[in-house]
Structure formats: C-alpha cells, structure tokens
C-alpha cells in the first residue's frame, strides 16, 4: 500500500505550488504531481508583466498582494519594479484609458494620468503620437521562466514531494482517500487540489465535474539583445500590448494576441496573422525597435471561465476536493491566491474571499 498524503496537488505551476507550500507549512504531508515539469505551462511561458494597470478592478486587492509577494521573491524571480506607462494613440483610446484607469484607481491601484510631454521625459524613445497616458509606479516585471526553479526551491524547503513527468490518468475514491492513477503507480491522498491551468477541464472530468473552462492561446515574442530603448513597462489602452526591455537588452513583447491550438491537441502554435499586428503595435509604440531581430515567438494557454473570474474554492459536491485556476492576471495574482487556497484547505479562513466554483458547476457526480 502506497503512502497516504494529506494533500495531492495536480499541477506544478505557480497556483498549485503556492497552495502546496502553504499546506505543507501548515503541517500537511503534501505532494505535487505535474504532467511536464514544474512551471512549464503558463506559469513559465507568460510575459512576466506585473502591471496593476492591466488587472481587473475586482481582482485589484489580490494583484496588489501578489506584487508584494513577487517583490519579496526579488532576484530569485528576476523581479524589477520599473513603473509602467499605458499609452493611447487616438481619442477613442484616450477615453477608454481615462474611464478604465479611474475605476482601477478607485480599487486601490496608485495610477495617475500623465501628459504626453511627461511620457516623452520618462521614455524619450517612445512614439511621439501619444495623446494620453497613465503611470503606475508599482508596475514592473519578473522573469516568468524562473517560476519553476523558484517554486522547486520553496517546495523542497517545506518538504513537499514533487512528481514530474507524471500525468494523472484516472481519479478514484476508496476508503476516504483519492487514488490518482499514473503511469508510475498510484498516489493516495485524503485531499485533492486541481490546479492544472488549461487542463482543469480534463482533470475535472476525471472527478465527474463539467467545468466551463476554455483556453486562450497567448503569444509572446522576444528580440535579441539591443541598445537600451525603454526602462519601464509599456502598455496600450486596450491592454493589447505589453513591452519591456530586460537588463540584458532583449525586448519582450506580449499583449494577449491569440495563437492556435488547444490543450486537447497538446500544443499551440503562433499564428502569423496575429503576430503581425502584435509586432506592428510594438513598433508603433517604440519605433527604435525596427533594427531589433526577433529571435523567438511562442504561445501559452491561459485558462478562463465565462465570467473571467477565478475558480478558487471547494469542488462542488465532492468532499475534500478543491479547484484553483482561471485567474485572470494569474502570474501576478498566483502566488497570493495560491496561498489563500492553502489556507482554505488547512481549514483556515482566507484573508480575502475566494471565488466559489459552485457558481458554474451543475454536474457533480459523487465518484
């Protein structure tokens, strides 16, 4: 008979790892089961933007806490607080910017509107066609590709077992425990957390849950190293551009332009027809990028549900099972909401309320 864990977490991304760490700190014997390697999904391939200006109003308190946690992780995750500028290039975008930033400011983000002249002072290499802009001194970025290594260290420190390259193929319940079938044997645990991002729908189905999870396919591009052009995180009023230049001179360009593919197909592709406007928007904002060579564009899955708010709470109808995912702005918010989830699993009241998955789930079969 294999060991019985207090908690098994399916998914070794930021959310699952953060929850596992908190549960282990609270005394639970915990294991993380990951189909690939730690941080190899969205946690590791997103653009690493930490911008309050692109967070949803209702999620702002979580995002502010998330920023604090990444800042504390500091060098280990390549954290840089640079401040961020969001740009509007025409009147329609300016109205959008004013309306959105006012609400985000009310929600607690220290965002201020700045003039095009101030933009030119802060970032002389930006386009001179800016008609309106906002500034947030809290904004910055971290290096998402370090997520896996960072959480590996934290998980090791608190004694969480890590099982990588281990897909879970079935979930059964027996004697009050969950039994996870994997190609290398069965893992048994009294509690179960599904935190597997875009694969939440498939994992939920193993429990008999029909989760309305869909996946967006976000595109990110990086250039080779070049001369210093910008020092802050650059965004666009629509949210369709994130751009920052790393200390090594390479420029990272994102903004949520959609590629193709799906979690079911097991991979995703860059779509040249959306990459083109993404890069054009970047070029328009920072004209000096013209000589930079793009060395790599890639895609990652961002899971969401119809209301674009997180799934974070008890799995409806299944005792001791929990769901965590679909966090819009998940890179920023992930470390914090993962910790809240760990508290919930430990039986503690989370510091901020979670997001009950019961609002969607209708089919809960007692497995």
């Amino acid at each position: 008979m294999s060991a019985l864990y207090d908690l098994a977490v399916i998914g070794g991304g930021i959310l699952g790892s953060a929850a596992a760490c908190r549960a282990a700190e609270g005394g639970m014997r915990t294991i993380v089961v990951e189909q690939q390697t730690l941080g190899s999904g969205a946690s590791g391939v997103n653009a690493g933007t930490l911008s309050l200006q692109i967070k949803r109003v209702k999620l702002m308190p979580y995002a502010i806490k998330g920023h604090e946690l990444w800042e504390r992780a500091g060098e280990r995750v390549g954290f840089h607080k640079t401040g961020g500028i969001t740009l509007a290039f025409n009147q329609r975008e300016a109205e959008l910017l004013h309306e959105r930033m006012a609400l985000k400011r009310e929600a607690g983000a220290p965002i201020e509107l700045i003039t095009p002249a101030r933009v030119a002072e802060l970032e002389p290499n930006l386009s001179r066609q800016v008609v309106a802009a906002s500034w947030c001194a809290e904004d910055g970025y971290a290096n998402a590709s370090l997520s896996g290594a960072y959480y590996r260290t934290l998980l090791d420190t608190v004694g969480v077992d890590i099982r990588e390259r281990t897909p879970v193929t079935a979930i059964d319940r027996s004697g009050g425990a969950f039994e996870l079938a994997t190609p290398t044997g069965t893992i048994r645990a009294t509690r179960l957390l599904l935190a597997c991002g875009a694969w939440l729908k498939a994992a939920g189905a193993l429990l008999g849950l029909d989760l309305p999870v869909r996946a967006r396919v976000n595109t990110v591009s990086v250039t080779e190293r070049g001369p210093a052009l910008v020092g802050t995180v650059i965004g666009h009023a629509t949210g369709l551009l994130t751009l920052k230049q790393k200390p090594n001179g390479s420029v990272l360009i994102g903004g949520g332009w959609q590629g193709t593919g799906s979690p079911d197909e097991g991979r995703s592709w860059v779509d040249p027809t959306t990459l083109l406007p993404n890069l054009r928007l970047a070029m328009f904002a920072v004209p000096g990028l013209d000589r930079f060579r793009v060395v790599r564009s890639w895609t990652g899955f961002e899971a969401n549900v119809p209301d674009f708010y997180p799934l974070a709470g008890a799995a409806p109808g299944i005792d001791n099972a929990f769901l965590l995912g679909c966090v819009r702005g998940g890179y920023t918010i992930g470390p914090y909401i993962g910790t809240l989830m760990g508290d919930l699993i430990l039986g503690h009241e989370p510091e901020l309320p979670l997001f009950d998955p019961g609002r969607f789930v209708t089919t809960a079969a007692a497995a």
Partner: protein
Amino acid sequence: MSDYDLIVLGAGPAGAAAAIKARSLGLSVAVIDEAPAAGGQVYRAPSPALTATQPDADREKGDALRAKLAASGAVLYANHRVWSLTSGFSVIAIGPDGPLTLEAPSLIVAAGAIERHIPVTGWTLPGVIGLAGATVLLKAHGVLPGRRVVVAGSGPLLLLVASKIVAAGGEVAAVVDAAPHTGWLARAGAMLARPDLMAKGAGWLLALLKARVPIHSGAAIRTIHGTDGVEAVTIGPVDRDWRPVGDAERTIAADAVCLGFGLLPATEVTRLLGAEHRYEPELGGWVPAVDASLQTSVPGLFVAGDGAGVRGADAAPLSGELAALGVISRLGRGGDLAREATKIATDWHRSSRFGAAMSALAMPPPGAAAMIAAETTVCRCEGLSRAKLDAAIAAGARTLADLKATTRCGMGPCGGRVCGEAAAMLIGAATGWDRATVGQPSARPPLRPVPLAAITGAFDYDNLPIPAPAPL
C-alpha cells in the same frame, strides 16, 4: 487559394530532384532557398567572383542540377529566408523584395542537415570554424580557413575538408578523429556496398598521406590556445567512449581549427508543424517519422534528403523523387506510380547504407560529454559555461526547455542550433538518460532571427485589427 500544388523547401540535391520530378508529372512547383543559387551545401554554387576556380566533380554535378531545375519550370525563390509556416500550408519568407507568403496543399521539406558541435576549451577563439562551415568557405569562396589548419572532430567530413585544404594549397597540421581506427573497420561492410564512394574516400586519404598529414585516430582536442586567435592546439587520446584518457598530450602549432562531430537532420520545420519524430542514431539523431512515401504524421507534409535522416548526397535525389511521387499520389494526379516508387525506394535504400554508415561513424557516444571541461563555454550566445549548465541540471532542470528557462541556454540568436546537442549531452551525462529520453528542443518561429521591420513592413496604425479590450 493555393499558389502552387507543391512547395519545396531547399534547393539542394533532394529538393531539386523533388521539384524536377513533380514538374515532370505536371504539378506546379515553387522551390525556396536561402542561398543565391540552387545546389545546397554539397553542390553549392561558387560565388560569381570565383570564375577562375578549377571545376571539379561536385561543381559539375551542381551546374547540371541548376540547369535541370531551371529547365523544369519550377519557380525558384532564391535568397529567401523562411521564418514561419502554418499547416495547410502557408510558407512565410523574407526575400530581397520584402515579405513573401506562398500557399500550397503539399510541402516537401528538404532542409538538409546542421552540424553537431561539441565545445572544447578555446572553441570560441577567432579561427575556429565548423567542418561544414569550412566546406562552404572552400567551395563557394575558394578561401582557406587558415595557413596551418587542424581538422578535428569525427566522421567523413574530416577527410573531405582536410583533402580540400591540401588540394587548394593549404597546410593541414593534423587530422584528429575521435573515433578509433576500428570504428571505420566496423562499418566496412556498408562501405563495400559502394566501391565508388569507398574509392572517393580512399582518394581523400591518399592525398593526405601523400601530403604527409598526420592522422590521429582515437584522439580529440583538449585545448585550443591563443589570445586574439588560434595559436596552437593540444590534443590527447580518448577511449572507446570518447572520454579523454591519459596524459599523452601533444601541442601542435596552428592558426585555424575546423571542428565538427557529424551532421544532424535539420528538423525545425517538421517540429514547428507538429510532426512526430523518432530518435535514430544511425541517421544522425531525431528524424521525422515517415511512411513509405516519406509523408510525415502531418498530412501533406513530406521530407527528403538529409533532413529526413542523414544518408548523404547520393541518396538525397532518390528520396526527393520518392517524396514527389508521394505528393502526386496524394493529390490523385499522375496515374499508377506504384512500380516507379518501388524501384526508386529500392535504389534509395541501397544508396542510403553508405551515408548512414558514415553518419553513425560521426555520432558521439555518451562518454563524449567528458570532452567538455567545466569552464568551457557551451552556449555562446549567452556566455554559459558547462559548470553553469551543470549547476542548473543539478538544481532540477531535466529538459532543454528547463535549461532554457533557468539559464537562457539556447535563447540567443542561434536558437539552440549550436548549443542544443551539447546541452542535451550534459543532461544525459548527469541523469544517465539516453539522448532519446532527454527529448527534442521545441521549434518556434521565427526559424531564423528576423529584423522587426522586415516582418512588419510599412503599415498604417488606424488599420491595425485591434480586438475588443479585455473585460474590465
């Protein structure tokens, strides 16, 4: 709406043969190549400035290939760099006149091979070039790599490059082959199947012996010395697993080094398009999985030449023709081609034996990782030493993607083409996993670095298709 029935990527012997065959059976065909003229690496056209060079057999074969391709009616897009593709198929390239997108229901990838590098101390000094790179210098530009050259690594390119240097009037200070003499003998059976090619190799060897070039088998470079360029090379023996053994070192004065360890199939395109691959050490490493018509797991996507598995220049045109017949059959054009395909396949398998034996001879055994010293730079773009990569592996990196995430290995302009195999060897050495278990690197666009302005071209901001903003 398709522009052509078939797009062929690569105008080397395999791609040209595929295009000519497909044209002869009535398909409309486009051929795309990075180089200014067809011919690939093996039949690379000499630079126009080099009209005075002596014609040789390869040059004549190349001229014949170029003439036949031009007469076939296939449209050659020379000087075009393909940077992305999508299934179905769209091929996105940048050429002298700007961006080019071509569409076709069938694609034959004849992208050839790339060189396998094993870093040695000093390999980043000016004056050190790849063996395959040396053939480009010699064939296309008539340029010697140096005045006194050490030719080192493994496989048949050692003898080819050394003999070409000698023929061009250069001095080869030494040929240093990691494989033991017995390695060549073990492959003699396959080589005897092609007495003509054996004779060619023997001719190279004879030329080297005549020029009194020292040939060191079962040996490898330990250090390349120099400050601003190559000044000397220290070599020493390796065991059967290519681990450096003993202290019987010798130092050879030289001003250039040609260094390479065989060829890998260039699989970026088939990986990018999501085709299945399998590991075949006899064919140079990871190759696309194909059916008898050389169609991959992606319908309509075919491969030919060394990109389908390193089998050499003689086998390449046959695989090109075979793939072309596969395309024609799939499109339902050209009647009953089964008999012809069977005959070509038989010839192809026969001619493949020699090339595959040569390929296997160049293949480093797992112990070769011991050739890489801790302080030696492995990832040149990011300046990462073996020690740094080993530390990341010790901290848990188990895939090339993990290594890239934690160290940036392979994130530079080379995209992992130079460092990828060495990085995989280090993972293998630390974990005991074989090369197949370590897995393949992922392929992502652009396939080669492309300036942003070349991709975006001129555009009007107001015409950007900006979707609705994210929910508030």
